[in-house]
């Protein structure tokens, strides 16, 4: 872990410190500005946006754009708002995150505590799968989903996200379990505990931090996915990102910027929430054992 020494031996003068704070504040503004302005303008009536200044505070405060984005905005051909797509995303995310995390935990357990000949090669194969450009699997995936009869459906998307998330979850759990004392496992074996009992009673209870990492990672990745949603979903299963893109890029009628912004924030809300609640653990866990082991 890298929390060993939070202290830094470098000392700085007063002018340097003023400069440091100035730079940090400038960058904080850079990161906050685009999203902050979007929030600000999502509660303005449209006339204030097209006729006014994006930086100014709303003269008339309205939540109308939010309701419209949620309930009644035109998405594709139907004026349904983003609501049904939000549910589509949730219905896809929960099973996909759960299945890929469970499989990742079991894989990581096998690959570190029940090693066998050739396991590193197998792990390498799984790891490389994380980084392939998904364009290479789009064509055959479309065929196979059709063949399995789950094309354009939520179960189809769940399958896709489980498959292409497995490498990452396996990586996380493997790196985490690698430093877990093997003596404990041996002691349990001597006491007669089997494969699943050891996993359930010894490994899982101490896996909290890495489960958090795996769940956050999978949740944000799957919630934010656009390519698979755009390629493999039909109207009944389209996720939030695809619907948002349809809303924003539709060329018919007046561009209702305030509704677009409200929609974008709605699409960002779940991942932001997860990030605000558990982001600290995520970064810590990610640094403890991920891409760089």
């Amino acid at each position, binding site marked *: 872990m890298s*929390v060993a020494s939070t202290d830094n031996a470098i000392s700085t003068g007063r002018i340097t410190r003023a400069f440091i704070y100035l730079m940090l504040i400038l960058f904080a503004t850079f990161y906050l500005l685009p999203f902050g302005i979007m929030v600000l303008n999502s509660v303005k009536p449209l006339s204030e946006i097209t006729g006014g200044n994006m930086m100014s505070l709303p003269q008339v405060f309205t939540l109308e754009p939010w309701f419209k984005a949620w309930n009644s905005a035109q998405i594709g051909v139907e004026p349904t708002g983003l609501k049904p797509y939000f549910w589509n995303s949730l219905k896809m995310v929960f099973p996909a995150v759960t299945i890929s995390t469970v499989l990742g935990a079991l894989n990581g357990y096998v690959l570190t505590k029940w090693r066998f000949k050739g396991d590193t090669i197998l792990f390498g194969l799984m790891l490389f799968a994380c980084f*392939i450009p998904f364009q*290479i699997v789009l*064509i055959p995936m479309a065929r196979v989903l059709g063949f399995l009869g789950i094309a354009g459906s939520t179960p189809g998307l769940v399958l896709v996200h489980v498959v292409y998330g497995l490498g990452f979850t396996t990586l996380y759990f493997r790196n985490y379990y690698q430093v877990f004392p093997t003596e404990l496992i041996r002691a349990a074996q001597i006491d007669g505990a089997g494969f699943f009992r050891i996993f359930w009673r010894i490994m899982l209870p101490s896996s909290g931090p890495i489960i958090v990492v795996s769940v956050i990672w999978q949740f944000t990745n799957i919630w934010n996915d656009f390519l698979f949603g755009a390629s493999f979903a039909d109207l009944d299963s389209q996720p939030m990102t695809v619907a948002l893109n349809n809303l924003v890029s539709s060329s018919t009628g007046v561009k209702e910027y305030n509704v677009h912004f409200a929609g974008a924030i709605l699409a960002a809300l779940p991942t932001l929430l997860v990030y605000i609640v558990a982001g600290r653990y995520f970064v810590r866990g990610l640094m403890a054992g991920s891409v760089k082991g």
Partner: protein
Amino acid sequence: MVDQTNSSVAMAADYATPTAVKPDLRTRLQNLIPKLVLSPSLALILVFVYGFIIFSVYLSFTGSRILPVYDWVGLENYEKLFRLRHWSIAIKNLGIFAGLYIAVCTAIGLGLAILLDQKIRGEGFLRPIFLYPMALSFIVTGTAWKWFLDPGIGLEHTMHLWGWESFEFNWIKDRNFAIYTVVIAAVWQTSGFVMAMFLAGLRGIDNEILKAAQIDGASNWNMYRRIIIPQLRPAFLSAFVILSHLAIKSYDLVVALTGGGPGRATEVPATFMYSYTFTRNQMGIGASSAVIMLMTIAAIMVPYLYAELREKK
């Protein structure tokens, strides 16, 4: 290693419980369980990743158009691909985008990490501000920046209203500069994440060496240049690997920010592949472009993963 101890332990357990009738079978079953548990995931990966790669590679040698057909046409698709102006634009754009994106993200990430590492008051407050864009979808990022950079309503318009009449920033509408707006938005999204990686690296450096160097009279600048930054090599490497594979895969951001336009000014291989395969019905060419993308990523990832996994053994 564990495998062997496992079987002997299982046998020991069997001796302790005389009720076990067939110790051999049980031991064998016990040894089989881990492999059985691993096999579904492995099967999924083998079929859906490696099987599919083989299928796509095969398609790239066929004359497939709307649907896959299996007539062998040799390298024809690749020859066509590299003669297409559309593809050379995409490659050139990817070069500009990836180069700048990796360089700027690394510079900002390292810079911010060093600044944040100076015992800053409010670090806990600033860090999440730098990091939160990473939680957003590229579609959201694209929506925000598309509008922020739109000269008619965004930044340029605001500057005009504030009295800076000559301010001009219309890159997103300009064929020659639109690709740079993709860089800006992408840097905004990921540079905080790179910062977190460098910060973790900085926090892992042993302070004793620094204190010793300080006693020897080394300046701050020299300490960073000679001692600290060289020790961040692993962080640089992982940042490079992650950023380059993100750059090659980037699709959503371009779709949401510019839609590949104006004209074809921001077309990248990922958008090229999609439009040739699914809207222009040139599946063979689409597949060959995907193969080129895969080979580019493999050229970076395979040596990296190989080195990482060897080290660990």
